[in-house]
């Protein structure tokens, strides 16, 4: 697994333009726009998809086929991708947060720690959701076909959320109050809830991914 981790970090060395773009966006939205939540969640999500990038690189010119002849268990390959994805996302989240804190104090505004906790909860969920959904799809369909499949899944996800909001409105359920209650009044409980739910989602996704790769033919 360590060999795969080294490989993935080496693969990311070629992503200089990607990291450059991230830094520019970070500066724009933190310093100029002062949009803390967008900036941190954007960077976290972008870092969480890095694991998909490494999988695309592994797949390049049918490279996965050769990779699977090497002394690597398919299960370990999958687990490494999840660990790499979580590590990259945490790194992105932490980096963006540090940048935002420094920027806030340099501007003399002070850092809104309560708001940051809410952003952290949302980021944990987003990062886990991205990893949990895209990894098995990427493994199942490969880098070319998976784009359409991922777009389809996220499209269906958005429709489901939209449908749920509309249904709640029809049933006269005040969603804003629920969100406020979760993210303002019970933030610590919400963060723990989201973390546990996300870990469970990720665990299920990992099991599905292992199954997909074990069954996959090259």
């Amino acid at each position, binding site marked *: 697994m360590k*060999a795969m981790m080294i*490989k993935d970090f080496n693969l990311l060395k070629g992503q200089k333009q990607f990291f450059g773009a991230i830094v520019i966006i970070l500066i724009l939205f933190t310093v100029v726009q002062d949009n803390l939540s967008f900036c941190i969640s954007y960077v976290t999500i972008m870092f969480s998809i890095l694991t998909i990038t490494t999988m695309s690189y592994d797949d*390049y010119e049918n*490279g996965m086929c050769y990779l*699977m*002849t*090497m002394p690597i268990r398919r299960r370990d390959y999958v687990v490494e991708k999840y660990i790499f994805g979580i590590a990259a996302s945490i790194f992105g989240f932490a980096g963006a947060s540090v940048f935002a804190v420094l920027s806030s104090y340099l501007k003399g505004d002070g850092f809104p720690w309560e708001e940051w906790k809410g952003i952290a909860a949302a980021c944990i969920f987003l990062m886990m959701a991205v990893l949990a959904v895209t990894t098995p799809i990427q493994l199942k369909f490969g880098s070319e076909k998976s784009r359409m499949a991922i777009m389809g899944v996220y499209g269906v996800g958005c429709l489901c959320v939209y449908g749920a909001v509309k249904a709640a409105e029809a049933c006269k359920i005040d969603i804003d109050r629920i969100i406020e209650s979760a993210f303002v009044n019970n933030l610590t409980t919400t963060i723990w809830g989201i973390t546990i739910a996300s870990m469970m989602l990720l665990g299920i996704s990992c099991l599905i991914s292992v199954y997909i790769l074990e069954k996959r033919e*090259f």
Partner: protein
Amino acid sequence: MLKLENVKKQYQGFELDCSLEVKSGFVTGLVGKNGAGKSTAFKAILGLIHTDGGTIQVFGKRPEELDIKDKEKIGVVLADSGFSGYLTIKELLPVLGRLYSGFRREEFLRKCEEFELPLNKKMKEFSTGMKRKLQVLAAVSHEARLLILDEPTAGLDVVARDELLGLLREYMETEGRSVLISSHISGDLEGFCDDIYMIDDGKIVLHEETDVLLSDYALLKMTDEQYHVLDKSYILRHKKEDFGYSCLTSQKRFYQENYPELVIERGNIDELIMMMIRGEK
């Protein structure tokens, strides 16, 4: 070392039904035209595809039973796949070092220099030949006991091919090692393999020791009249030609002694493939 018994794999319009054996200390060749089933057989051995029947044994185990230590003992070159093109050789070194406990880094680097492989260039910018050289170098650089090489010389010029085959001969100098190799360049196999399997349409149509193949097999060329009176006991395949008939035999001496008037040509592997595939039984 490696044994396939009636290994079956069904695809639309193609069925592999293959039996072959690679003995310890042997270099075994697998020849056949494109699409004959060579790569499918290699992938089945490596556990890259699921088979529909038969048994495969690598070091006495089924491919799915091979553990990390077993896989370390296998060196692989695949015709249509290789290292990620987004890595450089320099970046690959720690990966190979971690994957293979027997990886000989210094020797690998020395060979890279000898084969003029740049260490800091992304592999996607390598030519086909350079990619092949790198894969072969990686395969022989970690004390593997078995090499599975699918078209390792494809895309190489004569000099590079010779260098690479030299490397493989060097590899075979250590006892207890084996190689299964496929190539469409018959000269490579004639000079390197101990025995050769010929595969056509997914089935093994011939297995013979290379020495026997080159000494006892021959192409007989004759007129229609000569063909009709010929004893066909040792004729494997025949083919109608403008001048009469071409026949493939596995008993060259019999025809030399009994039919001195026939034109008898020492068969090379290319001609053998052609006759085995296009000739009639």
